[in-house]
């Protein structure tokens, strides 16, 4: 048993390291002040083009789609090495991670040729238009409708929680095309131009204070039938392709989120409620141990998955525990640490200690992470049903026409 690369993996890592050393030097340190949106987009596009020219985009994609035709391990190794730098990341993660694989799996040759190369090159940015105000966990309950009009479809409705909608050129949108059949059966997926007449994007301000998402309004937006992905009524199946990629993407602890080390550091500097250094208090040490077990347990679980991938096998079902553990552990650890800091843990803004500010950010952000990409509750359902084989929840609306169910 070992944590080493195979010879092939080691050679690829060496090659990637060399390339990054030559090309990512300006990103060795984080930016002194965070980039504004337009600079972030400009840098993201330049970086993507550079990577593309060197063959580090679409690493696992088929060569026919402009990819490299390599294994998931190659992609993971590239990600690990790029992760040592602070290059702009995130702008393409949804588009290239989820949308475009859906386009080249379900689109016709015309749209594939039109959209895939420019997306890979980073010239065009993509977003995913799935969630709605009344359809979160129950995604198949969406109401945005698309109605056939000659060779076109006309879309009306509202999407929400769309990352980078304001920076996107195109999106994939799932719409209800037939409300008279049960909810999973009346959906269809389309490619939509984010600049088309009738599209309106508004930022959402989150409880954490950030604005990472948008709501998107559709008013009589016209889409060509050639821009349909999959058959009419097959939108749910198509969406599952996309979401499969999302579950892989929303996994471990966010790279710079505080973990057990932060709690240890804080506990060395503050006094325990019963007196003495907090780091010597039994309850504090128990919490440090618990944080380590959860944080490191997920990292090690992911290494089990990498080992399977490295051998060309499919990772085991244990991967499904990652997000449900990570998000709640972040929240629990942050609230415990902030309480330990007393009044200082509560003071925010310029007066706050930078380490405390990070913990506050983690505490606020964790509340969103427990919901994004599958709530804790939905993820437990998935573990129980798909891993343990327990029966699905009772769904009274499952077989009823959508327009006859309580939601419509």
């Amino acid at each position, binding site marked *: *048993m*070992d944590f*080493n690369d195979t010879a092939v993996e080691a050679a690829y890592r060496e090659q990637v390291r060399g390339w990054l050393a030559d090309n990512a030097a300006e990103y060795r340190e984080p930016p002194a002040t965070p980039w504004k949106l337009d600079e972030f987009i400009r840098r993201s596009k330049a970086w993507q083009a550079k990577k593309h020219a060197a063959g580090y985009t679409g690493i696992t994609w088929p060569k026919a789609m402009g990819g490299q035709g390599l294994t998931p391990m190659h992609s993971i190794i590239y990600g690990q090495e790029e992760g040592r730098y602070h290059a702009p990341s995130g702008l393409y993660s949804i588009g290239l991670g989820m949308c475009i694989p859906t386009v080249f799996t379900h689109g016709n040759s015309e749209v594939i040729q039109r959209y895939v190369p420019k997306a890979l090159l980073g010239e065009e940015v993509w977003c995913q238009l799935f969630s709605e105000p009344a359809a979160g966990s129950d995604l198949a309950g969406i109401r945005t409708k698309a109605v056939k009009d000659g060779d076109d479809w006309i879309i009306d409705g509202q999407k929400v929680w769309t990352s980078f909608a304001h920076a996107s050129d195109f999106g994939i949108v799932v719409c209800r095309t037939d409300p008279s059949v049960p909810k999973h059966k009346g959906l269809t997926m389309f490619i939509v131009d984010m600049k088309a007449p009738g599209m309106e994007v508004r930022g959402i301000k989150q409880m954490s204070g950030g604005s990472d998402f948008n709501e998107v309004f559709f008013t009589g937006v016209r889409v060509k039938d050639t821009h349909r992905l999959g058959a009419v009524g097959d939108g749910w199946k198509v969406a599952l392709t996309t979401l499969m990629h999302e579950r892989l993407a929303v996994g471990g602890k966010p790279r710079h989120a505080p973990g057990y080390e932060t709690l240890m550091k804080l506990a060395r500097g503050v006094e325990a409620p019963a007196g003495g250094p907090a780091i010597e208090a039994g309850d504090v040490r128990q919490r440090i141990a618990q944080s380590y077990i959860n944080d490191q347990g997920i990292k090690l679980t992911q290494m089990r998955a990498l080992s399977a991938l490295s051998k060309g096998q499919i990772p085991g079902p244990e991967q499904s525990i990652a997000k449900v553990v990570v998000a709640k552990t972040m929240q629990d650890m942050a609230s415990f640490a902030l309480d330990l800091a007393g009044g200082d843990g509560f003071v925010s803004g310029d007066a706050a200690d930078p380490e405390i500010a990070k913990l506050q950010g983690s505490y606020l952000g964790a509340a969103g992470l427990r919901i994004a990409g599958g709530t804790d509750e939905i993820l437990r359902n998935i573990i129980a049903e798909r891993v343990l084989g327990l029966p699905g929840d009772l769904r009274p609306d499952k077989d009823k026409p959508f327009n006859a169910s309580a939601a419509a």
Partner: protein
Amino acid sequence: MNFDFSDDAKALGEQARKLFADKAGTTAARAAMAKDATDFDAALWAEIAGLGWTAARVPEAHGGLGLSAEETCQLAEAAGAHLAVVPLVSVLLATEALILAGSEAQQAKWLPGIADGSIIAVVATNEPGAVNPVALSVKAADGKLHGVKSPVADLPGAHLAIVAAAGADGPSLWLVDLKDARVEAVETLDLVRRHGKLTLNGVAAEPLGDGAAYQAWLDRAAVILAYEAIGTASSAMTMTVEYAKTRVAFGQTIGRYQGVKHKCADMFIKIELARAHALHGVAMIGSDGGELRQAAAAARVASLDAVSFCAEEAVQLHGGIGFTWESDCQFYYRRARALAATIGARGWWADRLVRALELRNRAAA
């Protein structure tokens, strides 16, 4: 990256699970519960020895197969899963101590008998009223031990005890030939596994390695016992999931209710976290990697959390039937306490984990 058991170790685990599924399990456990307190399943033990399981970890020079800790952990998980009424885990723990700390003469004296199954060796760390396996009341002086070890798993009928005792240089392990010692059966919450009390009134003992060897053995023991606990936890989960698929309430199987299925999902989550750390531990034993102490402590804590949670929620999700004497739930519920009471309490190991992290931080600074 190759963070997984070898195919050979997995194959041995598979063989063990098959044999135990056939010849151990809860029916055998129930039969054992009714029997005399010094019995274990001698026929099954002979079969195990014949298959080479007790020889697996013993070096070839001493009549064994010279296999790795991976094989030991696979066997421990299988034994834990099927509550096997044999002293296998005790013998595996003792074997680990002998190969880690034994002199050539000590290994030559004891390991061949362990390998062929004729010597039952156990480990005695527990003391009445103690939760800390390095603050010991049993003292070693002039090659003799004084004090009481209890409860000691699989002690009745055993031939050799590896005893943790405080000598002039602090806590370490000692070999005690049990023909010279006073052994009494002790009743514990675990009605299946035999436990005993070892009274040491100046009994002759040989030192087995030094204090550092004892610490290193504690780490290895924590990993092996974590696999036993993971096996037991997994069986409690499987039994509960199967019940939830068939038991009907309010017109549907109870496994459809989120109140039930989310607890089953939490069982899985806790078991997989424990597995991740336990596997880290095995990898570190195999490579003498620097992270064994933290991996072992995390495996110990996470596996105890998993087995307690699974055993407790197994009774709960079975409802009234789970609380009856006839239900098999009680075996896991009781065994969870036996596992928690060996080699030091959960809280001591959680503290040991943090101490290991502090040491690592100081080394890095």
